[in-house]
């Protein structure tokens, strides 16, 4: 993690950080990288990639449609809504 990577990530995530926060984050990742370097010496060749910590697999449901929520209820907490839509500040490329 360096200033350039952090700048790119904050841009992609639309975050604004103070200079002090930036320094904190960079220092934090520097410590993590040391930890990762220590782990990297372990041979993990035959270890399977872990996707989930819980031993739960194949949670699926049948393809049946239902509409238990109303649009009005879902939009009741929205900062702005109208004509059936959520409204957000204009985004056009």
């Amino acid at each position, binding site marked *: 993690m360096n200033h350039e990577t952090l700048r790119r990530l904050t841009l992609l995530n639309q975050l604004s950080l103070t200079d002090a926060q930036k320094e904190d984050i960079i220092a934090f990742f520097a410590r993590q990288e040391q930890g990762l370097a220590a782990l990297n010496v372990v041979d993990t060749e035959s270890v399977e990639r872990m996707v989930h910590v819980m031993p739960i697999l194949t949670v699926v449901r049948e393809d049946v449609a239902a509409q238990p929520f109303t649009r009005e209820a879902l939009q009741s907490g929205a900062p702005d809504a109208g004509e059936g839509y959520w409204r957000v500040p*204009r985004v056009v490329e």
Partner: protein
Amino acid sequence: MRYETVIGLEVHVELATESKIFCSCSAKFGAGPNEHVCPACCGMPGMLPVVNKRVVDLGMTAGMMLNCHINRTTTFDKKSYYYPDLPCAYQTTQWFAPVAVNGCVEIETSKGKKKVRIKQIHMEEDAGKLVHDIMPDTTHVDFNRTSVPLIEIVSQPDLSGAEEVIAYLERLHALLRFAKVSDCRWEQGSMRCDVNLSVRPEGSSELGVRTEMKNMNSLTAIARAIEYETARHIDALENGTEVLVQETRRWDDVKGKSYAMRNKETAGDYRYFPDPNVMPVVIDDAWYAAIEASLPELPEEKRARYISELGLSEYDAAQLTQSRALCDCFEDAVSVCGKAKDAANWINSEVMNILNARKMNFDMLHIDGKSLGALILLVADGKVGRANGKKVLAAMFDDTTIDPAVYAEENGLIVSHDTGMIDAVIKEAISSDPKAVADYKSGKEKAIMALFGKCMKQLKGNCDPQVLHTMLIDAIKATE
């Protein structure tokens, strides 16, 4: 210098499911804004996704149809993407273990047959719709399409021009519709395509600078866009008209030009990582076998079988195998009437006529093939005349629950075997047109057609034409 074009395609196909990929909201097209939404698909905190099994079924089906290896453990990942059409600020897709990998599709062009390699097929959710023209300074968001299930079929860069691209897309279209994976409607956006294109000197093994055109949704536009981009790339390389950069471009089909949109995000920018909320899906042997057993015959296999086993002509077989709906209707009809040639004939003439007249495409054919089989039997057995059979067929299009025999009975369309009545009609026709009688007797055999038509009309078509014809000749001969 001679150049060659290198093209890879990413084809998005909306799956034929009732509900969305991770929630129970309807996946149907055409509702009012935000009528198909719930806390899960509009990104409310704390909501957990649950995979729709049918999506995995269809993903596997597509994989098998395209000769892919199926990953027996398939997982979902988050793709970070910050835009209001995705309320979670990520798309749930597959990156590390997609449902199907390493397939191939055979295409045929004027240059012969060729195999196009499939890199992978992954399952993912669609994004919502943004509307910019209702109010200034405001974007309106519709989440109906958010989380509608898609598969993305990623090819290797094996295609070399518009002709091959079109052949490939048409082949995908046919295979996916035959397997009922999707209705593949370009015009509704249920099939759409990103075109990745680069140009290099012929024989070179290095790839040139690649540009991507996103969300193309018509074959003619795709062909035009490929011609344009190829020429633009060659012009840049030959004449230095511009410096090519890796970018996403938008195709304007009206102006016939492409325009730069934004720099293509690299995979790293999407920061893919395993979605901890969606459990891995393990496809056991029973599940795999069930999907394998459900795969349809390929169109060309059906065509060959219709010709060799059912005795159809090349033409009839080719007509029917244009669409799974036509094949299903034909096979159901034959299962009832046992008359393959009659069934092909009815579908390729009468059914097609009605579809054309009602501006319906083949896939909109909804009549019950078994009822059509029953109707074909009624006509073949002489119980309903051919012309009246067409009336029954038209009624079956209006109401698919109609039983042809009952409908014909109730509407007076059953052939009369009352020879007394036929006799009376013939006598009347003969006495009203002595000229036709005289002409026939003097050797003008066609003259009988006027009399025949008159009688048929009087009988409302409810008469076996063969019987009427014989009785009519006998009656004419009996006049002096």
